[in-house]
């Protein structure tokens, strides 16, 4: 049993509760930073992929998890960030300027798109963003002179202070680049959540009327949330482009949008952890499936056949299971397990019970 006694306001303001918790996270960071020495290149690449998805998840989490605005169109912003990054690099601008710029541009686009979307709630916003994601595909094809259209674009490595950072040539350097971005974005996110802006996001998510009554400007808050969310997503997109090396109009399809939303739901909406947990699931599920398929194939003696759609089918099942049995996602489950250990042996079964509520229409006049 472990109880943290609070003696100082800073304990609630700084990101960690006590030295114990801080040291755990520092150890985790050290282990991850040293990954190139305990992982082979293949799994290092997979880990890089997971981190990129985590950044994208953090981006969507700002908007959907904390501001409550469901977006089914974030692949459009991944695409924008990716293309902005590569096009500017091709124009000869150094990467260290291009990369931040790619995110900022995506953020500005996101904030601009938020303006007409401000009046839309729930399902209407979801379909609005879904349409954006579908249109992005066509827009990339139509702007072929800039984007390369269906033929797509290629990008080799980029140069940072004279060092070559390339997914294939120098996978370690690329991994550290991605890790650095992940850490910076996460720190910014943590800061956001302990400041008035992050709380106003939560306020807008939980009750727009009372947020207004507390002086939170709904339109402004949503626009900023869109902007920040899209900026982070843009960075993830830029990294995805570098990771993939080649991409075209179909790389960031609407399916990616849906996958991203599902990912943060599985991870746990409304928590930073959720984005990472979700990314781990989405990143390692294909590996896990192919390994278990081989295993099953070896046991029952059949040859391993490709089952199209298997990944999505399993993914869908996992998601359904989570929504039904653990709506707070992996993070929610993790919290319960942690509390169980911290309170041992005083954990009660209904500690996390949620109140049953009846749905009331929003169509009330």
């Amino acid at each position, binding site marked *: 049993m472990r109880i943290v006694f609070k003696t100082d*306001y*800073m304990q*609630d*303001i700084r990101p960690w509760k006590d030295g114990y918790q801080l040291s755990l996270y520092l150890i985790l960071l050290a282990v991850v930073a040293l990954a190139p020495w305990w992982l082979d290149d293949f799994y290092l690449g997979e880990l890089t992929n997971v981190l990129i998805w985590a950044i994208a998840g953090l981006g969507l989490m700002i908007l959907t998890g904390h501001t409550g605005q469901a977006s089914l169109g974030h692949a459009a912003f991944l695409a924008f960030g990716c293309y902005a990054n590569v096009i500017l690099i091709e124009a000869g601008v150094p990467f260290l300027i291009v990369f931040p710029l790619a995110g900022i541009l995506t953020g500005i686009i996101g904030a601009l798109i938020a303006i007409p979307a401000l009046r839309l709630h729930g399902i209407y916003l979801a379909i609005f963003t879904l349409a954006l994601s579908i249109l992005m595909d066509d827009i990339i094809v139509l702007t072929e002179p800039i984007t390369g259209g269906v033929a797509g674009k290629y990008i080799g490595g980029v140069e940072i202070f004279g060092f070559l950072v390339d997914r294939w040539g120098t996978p370690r350097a690329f991994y550290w680049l991605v890790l650095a971005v992940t850490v910076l974005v996460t720190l*910014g996110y943590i*800061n*956001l959540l*302990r*400041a*008035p*802006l*992050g*709380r*106003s996001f*939560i*306020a807008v*998510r*939980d*009750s727009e*009327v*009372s*947020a*207004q*009554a*507390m*002086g*939170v*400007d*709904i339109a402004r808050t949503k626009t*900023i949330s869109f902007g*920040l969310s899209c900026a982070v997503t843009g960075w993830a997109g830029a990294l995805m482009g570098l990771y993939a090396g080649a991409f075209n109009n179909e790389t960031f399809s609407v399916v990616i949008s849906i996958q991203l939303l599902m990912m943060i739901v599985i991870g746990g909406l*409304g928590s930073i952890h959720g984005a990472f947990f979700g990314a781990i699931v989405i990143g390692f599920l294909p590996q896990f499936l192919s390994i278990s398929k081989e295993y099953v194939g070896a046991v029952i003696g059949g040859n391993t056949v490709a089952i199209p759609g298997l990944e999505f089918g399993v993914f869908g099942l996992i998601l359904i299971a989570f929504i039904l049995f653990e709506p707070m996602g992996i993070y929610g489950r993790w919290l319960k397990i942690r509390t169980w250990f911290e309170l041992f042996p005083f954990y009660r079964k209904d500690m996390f*019970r*949620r*109140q049953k509520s009846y749905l009331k229409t929003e169509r009330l006049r």
Partner: protein
Amino acid sequence: MSLLELNNVTLKFGGLTAVDRLSFSVEEGEVFAIVGPNGAGKSTVFNLISRFYDPYEGTIRFDGHDLLQVKPSGVAAYGVARTFQNIELFEHATVLQNLLVGRHRHRKTNVISELFFTPSAKRQEVENREKVEEVIDFLDLQAYRDKMIAGLPYGVRKVVEVARALATDPKLLLLDEPASGLSVEETTDMRWWIDDIRRQMGITVLMVEHDMGLVSGVSDRVLAMADGAKLALGTPAEVQAHPAVIEAYLGKAS
């Protein structure tokens, strides 16, 4: 000059007149109650002051400002805080976070300084926290500080709503049925709190309430409404004795 002035305010929903040429003013430092049967338009008056509805005609002035010129979020910035009839708390946040949202109107930092959590952002957080702790002490919420709203009992939620409104450091506090659904003991607590809010904190209170015991116990003046219009205005005793009020509540004597 009065703190809050409503002048000839009318609101129509389609063909229905919800508020009918209503005028009244609230003086600084008083507790002003609005009473009336269900559907009399009491909460609608609050929603007009909060700018959720645009009046059809009339003016609403607060502390020398024309409220009709600002957005709903601007009302709080002038120092008007409110609670809601059907509690509107931020369900998936802790009590502390809820109260800290109340400090939003005092925010001096911007997006950039918050993203980097600069020393000024940190200082602001400590200040906010100190103010919020005062409110927590005042309303005896210490035990619930880190609890999620979603798991709290009804009576506590009601108090948290008042606390969140107080955290904004308002000049005028609008309480929409502060005692509805509360037990007798909780209502008594609420009565003393409202008294203290006025006396110790010097905050003017405008409330809608059905519980006549609470109304006559704390309020200086009472406005009785029916069908969106003013019936009577005066001290609690005067209003309770007013023939039009008795008629509205009990029906015409036959």
